């Protein structure tokens, strides 16, 4: 499992004709709901699982997230992408094996009908929420100078 972290600033250029941006916007709506439901002040980090056959490119998702998060509850959030490889089970011989995205037939018996065990994930796995910012406990006028 490889991880891709969003490190680019909000000015990263995103080609808008890409579905990773739409997926980010859906993710941000889920984050807004979680923040409201838990009475949190924001999101510190968000972990998503992206399978190699999900149709989503982790680096593009990270770029889109840097743009889409601006101004919302996740504006300071770190995006952690867990990129998951493909794994199949043969329906004929039952063998389980890792597989390349374009070679999903059974490598043991050659059967063309296999079940994808992992690799198409597009999941919001975990969120770390910030609790509400502390209310000032005292306010002391600074000495004039």
């Amino acid at each position, binding site marked *: 499992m490889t991880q891709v972290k969003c490190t680019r600033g909000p000015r990263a250029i995103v080609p*808008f*004709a*890409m*579905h990773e941006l*739409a*997926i980010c916007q*859906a*993710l941000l*709506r*889920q984050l807004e709901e*979680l923040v409201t439901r*838990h009475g*949190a002040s924001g999101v*510190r980090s968000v972990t*998503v699982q992206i399978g190699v*056959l*999900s*149709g*989503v490119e982790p680096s593009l998702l990270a770029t889109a997230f840097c743009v889409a998060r601006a101004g919302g509850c996740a504006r300071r959030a770190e995006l952690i992408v867990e990129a998951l490889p493909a794994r*199949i089970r043969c329906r004929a011989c039952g063998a389980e094996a890792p*597989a390349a*995205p*374009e*070679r*999903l*037939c*059974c490598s043991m018996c050659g059967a*063309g*009908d*296999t079940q*994808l065990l992992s690799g198409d994930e*597009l*999941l*919001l*796995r*975990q*969120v*770390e*929420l*910030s*609790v509400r910012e*502390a*209310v*000032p*406990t*005292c*306010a*002391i*006028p*600074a*000495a*004039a*100078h």
Partner: protein
Amino acid sequence: MCNSCGCALNGAAPGVHGHDHHHDHERVTVITEVAAPAPESVEVLQRLLAANDEAAAHNREHLDRHGVLAVNLMSSPGAGKTALLEATIDALGGRVRIGVIEGDLETENDAARIRAHGVPAVQITTGSACHLDAHLVHRALHQVPLDEIELLFIENVGNLVCPASFDLGQHHNVTLLSVTEGDDKPSKYPVMFRAADLVLLSKCDLLDLLDDFDPQRAAAALQALGRSTPLIQTAARRAASIQPWLQWLETALARHRILAARRNGVPHAALEL
């Protein structure tokens, strides 16, 4: 850092307010910081496209309630989706009541082409969006006369990448691969071709002119995706060549009617599919 106001200005010695910016320290308050509690960690395990999936399920229920079979047509731009629809409408129009939702970035051109064949068509223009989603289709469905049709084609935006990730509420995905493209497209775009319930090789009337497209290689690349997806050759300009595609559609329609009848408790629904 300035000890009076806390401003992070370099060069200010402790206790000395030597910098020259202007702010009124009479009004500054010192806030005693409270140690931030540990963040709350929440396990979610929800699909990122949960809202789209919910809208898609709603669309499917809506279609099922009206007994309409929905087929989502996907391909790269220019693979011949609209031409195939025109030929399909001409061939089936007498027997099957058809409606079409067209998806394009701009223009009503494709919907106008379909309407010219006497079939209701609703155009979705997505602007810059590269795919249809379930919410766009939901809005379009309200303009489709569902009581008057039994087969709805949704012609997705021409794109072999993005549309594969979005369930629209369709019953079947059909992906076109034109012979003017590479025969290795299923290997290059595995997500799209894995999503297909049927792949149509389109523009097969051009095969004699093209020596670099081998239908056998295309079939092998498709089978390597582990789905045993059927592959049918078509040529929209030759009516006879689309018979296997029409037969696939009529079988899908018959199957859909039986499933609908089973849902409604009709006796003949016990027939083997």
